[in-house]
């Protein structure tokens, strides 16, 4: 009798522990509910403050049109993006649909993404630009449907330009001259926002690139790269027309300085327009394409950060067809005003942009910049490269290394971690 009670106790305790482990994993992730109902998970890092409500509305409309498909949206921060998605995809429970950027190639190479060629015919692919489709293609196969086309422009404060009689600069020399004129007193700067991506932009404008064509080594370990980094250093240290590295304690403070009219020019993503409209509705601002650097290629000479945001389906997804249905709905030009108009982005589908942002001169200019978009060569080591450029830029701005030395060390570090 005692023995039976004891065995019963052990069994109950064991079951308790085991069920505590398993019930959790059963609930998570995608699964089919009753009678063909399908639940999809969709992860996206947010680019705009109001995005969560926008997705709620889009998903509501989608579920109305497809009553058997439910979409669970999860907003993931860009901070720690790599860690979160790597862990999710390395495990067995990745999101069915995820928003991918430069990291797509890494996930595609590792075999974690679903091939989309079976869903998308060539005529459908041809609706996109070649740049956009190439961006989602790895080893000749499509793994991401182009969704957002993000370009950048040089934003400027119209009041400062008018007051100092500055014309829109067209070349690096004119940019330096304009920045000199606009720099006044202890806290008004000619140019700001020379962050990591814009450090790369100067090197691109000089004729270098972030990677070589194959994406296997850094593309700025050359005289052009050094010239680009040198140009940024000169703006900060020799001309003193850009704030030194410790002048603002955070990037937000620097943005705030632009909103308050303390910075005359600032390169920024097109989403910056929305940010200006909310934070500084009275700011007199304009934008122009980046002044041309010495690069031979005309597109590269005026390149600022551009990227394609793509929608991918996980290889492990149990409902790829339904997931593609959702992607198709999201990129549909008829729904463009639901997402792009309120977030301030452009679609990677040119026809969707025709009716967007009409009458806004800055957005019209951005619309044109999509056609000459300059994107980095795809590389599995994008995160590593960004980390290395971060250190390189800081070493130069803190007087620890010359641009030449910093680039040499950067290339050495990058190559040492390549398999």
């Amino acid at each position, binding site marked *: 009798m005692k023995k039976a009670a*004891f065995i019963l106790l*052990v069994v109950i*305790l*064991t079951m*308790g*522990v*085991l069920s505590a*482990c398993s019930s959790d994993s059963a609930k998570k992730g995608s699964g089919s509910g009753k009678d063909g109902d399908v639940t999809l998970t969709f992860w996206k890092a947010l680019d705009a403050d109001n995005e969560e409500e926008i997705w709620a509305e889009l998903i509501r409309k989608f579920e109305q049109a497809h009553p058997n498909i439910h979409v669970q949206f999860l907003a993931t921060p860009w901070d720690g993006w*790599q*860690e979160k998605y*790597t862990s999710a*995809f*390395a495990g067995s429970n990745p999101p069915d649909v995820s928003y991918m950027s430069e990291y797509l190639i*890494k*996930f595609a*190479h*590792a*075999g*974690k993404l679903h091939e989309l060629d079976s869903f998308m015919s060539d005529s459908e692919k041809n609706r996109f630009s070649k740049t956009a489709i190439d961006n989602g293609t790895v080893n000749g196969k499509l793994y991401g449907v182009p969704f957002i086309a993000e370009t950048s422009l040089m934003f400027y404060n119209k009041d400062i330009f008018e007051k100092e009689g500055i014309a829109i600069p067209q070349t690096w020399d004119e940019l330096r001259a304009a920045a000199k004129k606009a720099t006044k007193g202890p806290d008004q700067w000619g140019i700001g926002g020379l962050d990591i991506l814009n450090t790369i932009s100067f090197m691109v404008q000089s004729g270098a690139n972030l990677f070589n064509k194959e994406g296997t080594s850094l593309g700025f370990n050359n005289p052009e790269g050094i010239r680009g980094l040198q140009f940024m250093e000169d703006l900060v240290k020799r001309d003193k027309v850009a704030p030194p*590295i*410790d002048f603002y*304690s955070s990037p937000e403070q620097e943005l705030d300085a632009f909103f308050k009219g303390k910075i005359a020019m600032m390169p920024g993503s097109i989403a910056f327009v929305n940010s200006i409209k909310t934070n500084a509705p009275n700011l007199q601002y304009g934008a122009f394409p980046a002044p041309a650097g010495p690069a031979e290629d005309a597109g590269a000479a005026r390149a600022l950060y551009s990227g394609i945001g793509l929608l991918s389906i996980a290889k492990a997804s149990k409902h790829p067809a339904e997931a593609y249905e959702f992607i198709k709905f999201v990129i549909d030009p008829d729904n463009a005003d639901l997402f792009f108009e309120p977030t301030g982005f452009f679609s990677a589908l040119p026809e969707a942009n025709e009716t967007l942002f009409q009458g806004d001169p800055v957005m019209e200019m951005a619309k044109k910049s999509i056609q000459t978009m300059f994107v980095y060569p795809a590389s*599995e*080591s994008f*995160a*590593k490269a960004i*980390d290395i450029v971060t*250190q390189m830029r*800081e*070493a130069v701005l*803190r007087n*620890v290394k010359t641009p030449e030395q910093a680039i040499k060390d950067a290339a050495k*570090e990058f190559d*040492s*971690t390549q*398999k």
Partner: protein
Amino acid sequence: MKSRKERFKSQLISFSFLLPYLIVAVVFSFLPIAVVVWLSFQRGSLLDLSSLHGAGFANFAAVFTKSLYMKSILNSLFYIVVILPFGQFIALTLAFLLFRKNKVNAVFESILFLPLVVSMVSASIMISYVLSTNGPVNYLLAEVGLPGILWFSDPVLAKLAVVILELWKGSMFYVFIYMAALRGVPSDYIDAARIDGAAKWQEIVLIKLPLIKHIILLCVVLSTIAQSQMFDSIFVLTKGGPLRSSESIYFAIYRAAFLDDQIGISAAIAILLMLAVLAISIFQMTVLRSRHES
């Protein structure tokens, strides 16, 4: 006299009561450690575990030959060497000042307890504001005509900023352990010492400290482990900067796994860290305990 079979049965019953815990421990603790040990001998990407292949001791060799990893290991040592003695000294001193129960001490006790209820991330954000370029510390310095300090631009100052945060937030925990220990010292010993004419310092050094020695040992070991695991404070306060100068060993683990995409090296650093903490703790225990017993 019980038979062997019966003894075995009763032992089995006793162990069976441990079963629920053992299952949890095996699933969430022992198995992951075993996997990390296995990973540390592999080469490949975390994202594509099917591509892993054996690498022998190459990962461990890489840890010691790459300056990037070595730098963060040395930084972690720096944090332990600085924070451990200062933190314990401050905690002991405060405990001696506050262990008597009265109304004034109760107020101080509550104030000292505050950092403990704040999460490390909030505490880091607070300190990063206090020490920022336009923060209160530099404002006070400017008021008395001194130049401001750029805490996060200098490799040494950035490490000190982390030390300040860890002392303020981390060491207060030990104040309360020491206070509890001091309150547990029987008053008979103190009375006897006083009758024998012991001075105040003799009372502390010869009576109280030896009596709470095992608690000090505990705190030293706990603090060593805590300091070797520092990550969140540094990540929020300095992001490891400037120029990676304040990165702890956890940054190397993170960097190897996610940026260099070499899960094997990452696992190797984690194993080395575990062994090092184990070795340091055992060393501390033997040294402090043997003195206690002699």
